[in-house]
């Protein structure tokens, strides 16, 4: 018998490259990527359907940015566990995202170990 059911993840990024990379890192660590979103709006909608255990959220996305998406999601689901994915130089935005309800963040370029540490912290 498995010790626990694997956690579900929604990966949000407008770049397919980044989505793939994050999905791979998480899948290899035993997470189940249940959905991907290219825009903030899509992220909000998919969150409602999928209720994933974890969301990875890019900051800059078309249609609706990541911070606004965090705000939208947390408005209805303050318990949401959202991990921001940011690039260097975006500190002010990351701070804003955390104020909006994101639980943690990782900084690109991603090192798998760093990403997994952050994920554990968010889920822990």
């Amino acid at each position, binding site marked *: 018998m498995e010790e626990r059911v694997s956690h579900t993840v929604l990966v949000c990024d407008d770049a397919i490259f980044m989505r793939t990379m994050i999905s791979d890192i998480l899948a290899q660590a035993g997470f189940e990527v249940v959905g991907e979103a290219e825009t903030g709006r899509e992220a909000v909608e998919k969150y409602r359907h999928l209720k994933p255990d974890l969301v990875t959220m890019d900051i800059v996305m078309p249609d609706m940015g990541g911070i606004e998406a965090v705000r939208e999601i947390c*408005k*209805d689901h*303050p*318990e949401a566990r959202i991990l921001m994915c*940011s690039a*260097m*130089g*975006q*500190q*002010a935005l*990351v*701070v804003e995202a*955390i*104020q909006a309800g994101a*639980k*943690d*963040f990782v*900084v690109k370029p991603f090192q798998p170990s760093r990403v997994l*540490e*952050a994920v554990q*912290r968010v889920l*822990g």
Partner: protein
Amino acid sequence: MDLSRYAALFLTESREQLGACGRALLDWERTPASTEPVVSLFRAMHTFKGMAAAMGYSNLTELAHRTESILDLLRGDPASGRDLIDLLFRIVDALEQGAERAMAGGDAQLDFTKLLADLDEASAAAAPTGSRAMPIPEVAAPAFLPGREVRVTIRSGAAMKGARALVALRKAEALGSVSEIRPPGAFEQELFDGRFSFHFSGAADDLALRAAVEAAGEVATVEFGTGDAAAPGEAAERSRQIRVDLKRLDAIMNLVGELVVAKGRLTELADPADSPELKAVGSRISRIASDLYGEVVQARLTPVWQVFDRFPRVVRDLARQLGKRVRFEVEGEDTQLDRTILDEIGEPLIHLLRNAVDHGIEPAEQRLVHGKPEEGLIRITATSDRTTVLIRVIDDGVGIDRGRVLADARRAGLVPEQTTELNDDQLLKVLARPGFSTATQVTDVSGRGMGMDAVFSRLRALGGSVDLATTYGQGSTFTLRLPMTLAIVRALLARVGEERYAFPLAGIAETVEYHPNRVATLEGREAYALRETLVPTVRLRERFGVTGPRPPGRSPAVILDVGGRRAAIVVDALIGQQEIVVEPFEAPKGTLPLFSGATILGDGAPALIVDPAALV
């Protein structure tokens, strides 16, 4: 359980929590739709409730509990609660007063019926759409762990230390109430070095708190203390802190003062003595006394925010009462000042702030007509150099109508008939006259009986001075110049007749021999040609009504300089420089307003301390 031993702690902590409530309310009022203030308010109220309950104060507990319940509902939709803000202010006030009365054994007599009824009514009206209260970790245990300073360092290699610091704060906030985050506003900065501190109160012990903060990741160190935060950068070698009763510090200061005086006497006695050993001991005691004095002075320095903290509320309440829109900004709240001076300037500053709201800031319509933003701006700033602290109260209001003040001043005979214009200094002197007021400008809005003249005399007694710069139509700036430390100053002693007088060195530009060839006239008064400029002369013998024989030869003069204004003060003789201990001084009624204090000299004789600002 004997609760009395927690009483003092309860009072201190509840003041902190209710203070945090007040600040959160001000924030909320500024940004009615943001969640942050409501959440802080909720947490602080929750913590207060826990403490009141643990003390068995059931009336306080109930009011706090009912307030908390409403805040809980409002967290999901802060904007819907904006009409409650006034009521909440009243509740916080009531809890503050109630806490003190409860401590004195009066909880049972507290009657919050009216507030509770208002609360019921308001909450029925403001039922937010849908209940989306956020979960908050229950702080069930009475929060009797003392509030403490938590200092955190983020690992040096970590990316985005500011964002990481915020994650750590969030973890701490889940356990209790977090306030006084320092350095403020640093987390958005790319260059933030990862060291910060905050004040934590709640039921979590150090171990739990450390674990929570470390769970944020990338945390290098977590340290705990009470009292003031070590400045960032000093975290590694921070000193351990204890709380000391101010009275004890005052006593030490007085003893150090006496030691300095005795030291002065010892030096005088040792000087003519033909004993190198005595001189060596004398100079060693001298050094120790100065060091000791320096340490005590440091220990007494207090950041001005401890007094400034209540100003936003004062400005807000008065602005609302008068139906004005006023933005209030505080700068330099970490500037340090002697505790006693700080305590003394609170009331004068409130007077200036209230004047600014009442008489400075115009009604919105009038502002718009003159092309100003509808919202008035009042700022209070504090800056310091080595020995002086400058506090400015700045408003962008209507300024002072010189014409009007001049007319009134002429009528009252305060200025010569032929005066056609008042400069800033003259204006200030007129405003500072006891009882002087014009209908539109300077009145006692506070009703506390402190007029402008009281503001000035209070400051003079502290060895400070006031400057005014005002432009009609554009606003006024009052600048308070204060000594950073009170008790001991270096002064020049001078003799006039039989008496000795002390001139604080901070107000002296130089001393000269008063040469008769250089005496001139300036606006009908005697003046002295000091190099290229004419400086008004004040002859202290005449001013003090000294009649005895004048010493032969030329008299020396002390050139005073206060913020660029100068005067040549002619005295009988200069005695020398000395450290003097400033004693609190209430000038007897009817005496010349020329002195800022008194001191005891090394030989035990008293001397008056001349107030340079009163002579220039």
